């Protein structure tokens, strides 16, 4: 298989315009003859579904929650980047492009990133027009703040609830279409199979989570907007129902999975407090604008933070990276926290945290101003930890947050299965090995509002799709497969709960394939995961029946997929013998402990082909060339 990224030729500034012009259009009258299935209603899914319906396509939308508004995009806090250059601080499409490629440690496809930067400004226009209440200056113009990995202020925000407001904007556009009858909404549905007929994606098979019925839906194209796989680590900042199942099932049908080892560990999360913990809570990176990260200089210093004098504190990010200071990219901040903690300088009862201190900012700006900027984050922290961050420094620890890897897609966002598109966090395309803060929202909305409405038409006009419907044999086969799998899960009747397995898998992943990885431990992880998977199918216990709302059954299915996917993630990490962005191999580091890339051998996207559970997957490489941003060691000092 040769991976064709279908990146148009010509200078990078012209590629997208040229491609839009060259892509064939679907006649307005013909659009309603096409059924498009959109799975997932986060920023990517909701914006795509609404935009396609506005164009006239017949859209069916599926989500796992009770309402499309619950998708996990809602939890994004800090903001969304756009090259508007409102602050007049030197931003441009080119600079956003440059920062994103560099921030991604030169492992992203240049053309995609440039397009992302190009459409970023239109996203802000669109969201403002929808009534998204972005923060404003007193003069009435939009307000910006700075974020990690950039020296300009290009982040637009709505308090600490930017993701919520952007999602509600996209959701409202979607609801408008549902009200007009151009979109049919299917909530509480979980996609459990992709239907491929004559080599093209033609539909999906879902389980109705309320009744347990297996339902089939046919269409001319399927859009997976199902988010990331961070929950493979069990503890992550992702929502409980975030899962890899939809993309994993597509992978099993032939869609290549790219760069799964690129996982982002977010530096500012609330530390773990005990075994019972079901999730980790992230606090926006924007906190690093005013908060200063430090640890005591002395190992095992158990004094309370306010009694440690300035001279005995190590503001290690400011010390090591004077020009970016506390605003270094996430991977750098996380790794430095880990190394401080590994040196024994961690704080808090468990020693598994570092301080994020606002006392200086409160002195400088006043508590009122800080409250206005970060009030909800401070409240959230206070609720969870029972400590008041206005009085004592926050304690933070890194946690799994975002998946840069995902289904491999070409420039049109189409996977290796014709007719199967993948948008947002679920694909691998734009962030390389590390995503910059406030860029996930940008990518999800770029894909949904401004890319897929063009590229989908190109596919539909250039492909002859025979008539099919949910009664065809391909659908019946998949329905049977889903029913059998469910039955299998219910029949094991072992002793351990699905969550129990999930926790164990998460521990393997975090310990062996977390912030720092090495060959021995990765190899160990592969065999441990395989063993756990085997045990799962012998010893899992799923109570109640299929024919009802059964959350234990739902969880079991997702954990089963994670047990297969986790192995792929580790294999990818093992094969990538370099450190880059969120993937840090202990064997490959510079003398001062920074990630050391190997551009000669690993400047490619690793796209894996499924060959069977427990079988070694086949690697396909998409070479990455950097014609516009020159390969360089990332340096934030």
């Amino acid at each position, binding site marked *: 298989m040769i991976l064709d990224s279908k990146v148009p030729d010509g200078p990078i500034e012209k590629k997208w315009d040229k491609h839009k012009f060259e892509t064939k259009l679907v006649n307005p009258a013909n659009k309603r003859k096409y059924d498009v299935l959109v799975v997932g209603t986060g920023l990517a899914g909701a914006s795509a579904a609404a*935009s396609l319906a506005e164009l006239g396509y017949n859209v069916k939308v599926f989500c796992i*929650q*009770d*309402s499309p*508004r*619950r998708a*996990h995009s*809602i*939890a994004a806090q800090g903001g969304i980047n756009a090259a*508007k250059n409102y602050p007049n601080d030197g931003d441009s499409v080119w600079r956003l492009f440059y920062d994103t490629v560099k921030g991604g440690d030169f492992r992203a496809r240049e053309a995609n990133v440039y397009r992302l930067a190009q459409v970023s400004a*239109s996203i*802000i226009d*669109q969201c*403002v*027009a*929808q*009534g*998204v*209440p*972005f*923060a*404003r200056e007193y003069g*009435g113009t*939009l307000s910006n703040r700075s974020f990690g990995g950039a020296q300009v202020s290009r982040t637009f925000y*709505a*308090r600490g*609830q930017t993701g*919520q*407001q952007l999602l509600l904007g996209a959701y409202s*556009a979607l*609801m*408008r279409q*549902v*009200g007009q009858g151009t979109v049919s*909404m299917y*909530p509480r549905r979980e996609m459990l199979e992709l239907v491929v007929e004559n080599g093209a994606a033609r539909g999906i098979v879902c389980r109705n989570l*309320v009744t347990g019925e297996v339902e089939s839906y046919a269409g001319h194209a399927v859009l997976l907007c199902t988010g990331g796989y961070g929950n493979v680590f069990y503890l992550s900042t992702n*929502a*409980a*129902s975030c899962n890899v199942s939809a993309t994993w099932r597509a992978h099993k049908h032939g869609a290549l999975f790219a760069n799964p080892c690129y996982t982002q560990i977010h530096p500012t999360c609330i530390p773990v407090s005990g075994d*019972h913990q079901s999730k980790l*809570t*992230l606090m926006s990176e924007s906190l690093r604008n005013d908060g200063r990260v430090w640890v005591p200089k002395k190992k095992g210093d158990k004094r309370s933070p306010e009694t440690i004098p300035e001279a005995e504190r190590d503001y290690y990010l400011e010390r090591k990276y004077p020009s970016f200071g506390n605003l270094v990219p996430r991977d750098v901040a996380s790794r430095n926290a880990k190394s401080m903690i590994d040196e024994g300088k961690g704080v808090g009862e468990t020693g598994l945290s570092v301080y994020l201190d606002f006392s200086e900012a409160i002195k400088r700006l006043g508590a009122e101003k800080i409250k206005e900027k970060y009030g909800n984050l401070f409240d*959230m922290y206070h*609720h*969870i930890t*029972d400590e008041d961050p206005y009085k004592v420094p926050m304690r933070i620890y890194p946690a799994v947050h975002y998946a840069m890897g995902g289904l491999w897609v070409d420039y049109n966002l189409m996977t290796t299965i014709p007719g199967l598109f993948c948008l947002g966090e679920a694909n691998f395309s734009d962030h390389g090995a590390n995503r910059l803060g406030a860029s996930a929202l940008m990518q999800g909305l770029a894909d949904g*509002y*401004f890319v897929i*409405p063009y590229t989908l038409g190109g596919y539909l006009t250039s492909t002859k799709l025979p008539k099919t419907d949910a009664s065809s044999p391909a659908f019946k086969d998949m329905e049977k497969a889903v029913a059998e799998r469910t039955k299998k899960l219910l029949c094991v009747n072992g002793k351990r*709960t699905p969550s*129990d397995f999930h926790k164990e898998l998460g521990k393997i992943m975090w310990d062996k394939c977390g912030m720092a990885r090495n060959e021995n431990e990765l190899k160990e992880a592969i065999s441990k995961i395989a063993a756990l998977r085997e045990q799962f199918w012998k010893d899992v*216990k799923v*109570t*109640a029946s299929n024919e*009802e*709302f*059964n*959350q*234990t059954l739902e969880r079991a299915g997702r954990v089963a997929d994670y047990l297969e996917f986790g192995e792929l993630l580790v294999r990818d990490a093992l094969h990538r013998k370099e450190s880059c962005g969120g993937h840090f191999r202990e064997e490959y580091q510079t003398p001062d402990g920074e990630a050391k890339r190997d551009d000669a051998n690993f400047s490619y996207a690793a796209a894996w082909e499924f060959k069977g559970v427990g079988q070694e997957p086949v690697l396909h490489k998409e070479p990455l060339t950097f014609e516009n941003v020159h390969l360089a060691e990332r340096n934030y000092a």
Partner: protein
Amino acid sequence: MNLTLKVWRQKGPNDAGKLVEYSAQGVSPDMSFLEMLDVVNEGLIKKGEDAIAFDSDCREGICGMCSLVINGQPHGPELGTATCQLHMRTFSDGDTIVVEPFRARAFPPVKDLAVDRSAFDRIMQAGGYVSVNTGNAPEANANLISHHVAEKAMDAAACIGCGACVAACPNASAMLFVAAKVSQYALLPQGQPERTRRALKMREAMDDEGFGNCSNEYACEAACPKEIKVSNIARFNREHLKASVCSEE
């Protein structure tokens, strides 16, 4: 801590439900309420019993998926938090806690503590949007919006659509939810072209769903995890009155 739980169990939408007693042993004060239920559920599954069904997702108070009426209070006794942000340190050893679903005719039961809140989506479909197609937007800074207005719109837009207002209202009214959305758009210039239509359509959809009538008791405001103010309800009343009586549209 050891606690006694009385949890509403109901097999399906058409079955009768009842409170069933469970004991929760060794509860840590740092657990969230939902994590405590997770632990109870793990125990139930191991015993071969059906786990207690309840909705939750983000577990950080923003998705609006979690619900629960805890000792008669939606999202529990704390102010300004969702159930997922309620920690067990709020309770004392030996407490008995009654856990029920959000109850309203417009929120039919799904199972146990999970209910169907799609009525909110249908209200949104009636007018909870600005009609602007993708690509149709003017330059973002073309409309100046004062800081104060933007903040007020944001206060209203902070609604997470959890339905606690309905659950807390003695009349199961959805006024606070609808009013928050109507307010957000009524305050902003983007919402002006559809202002009249929106107030009328959303009110009509709200009434069609079978919610009760607002009696200005403000239990909704007290229960709202995002502390949405009832001044939005007044604004909705005003908008609706204007749309019904004054508007020529």
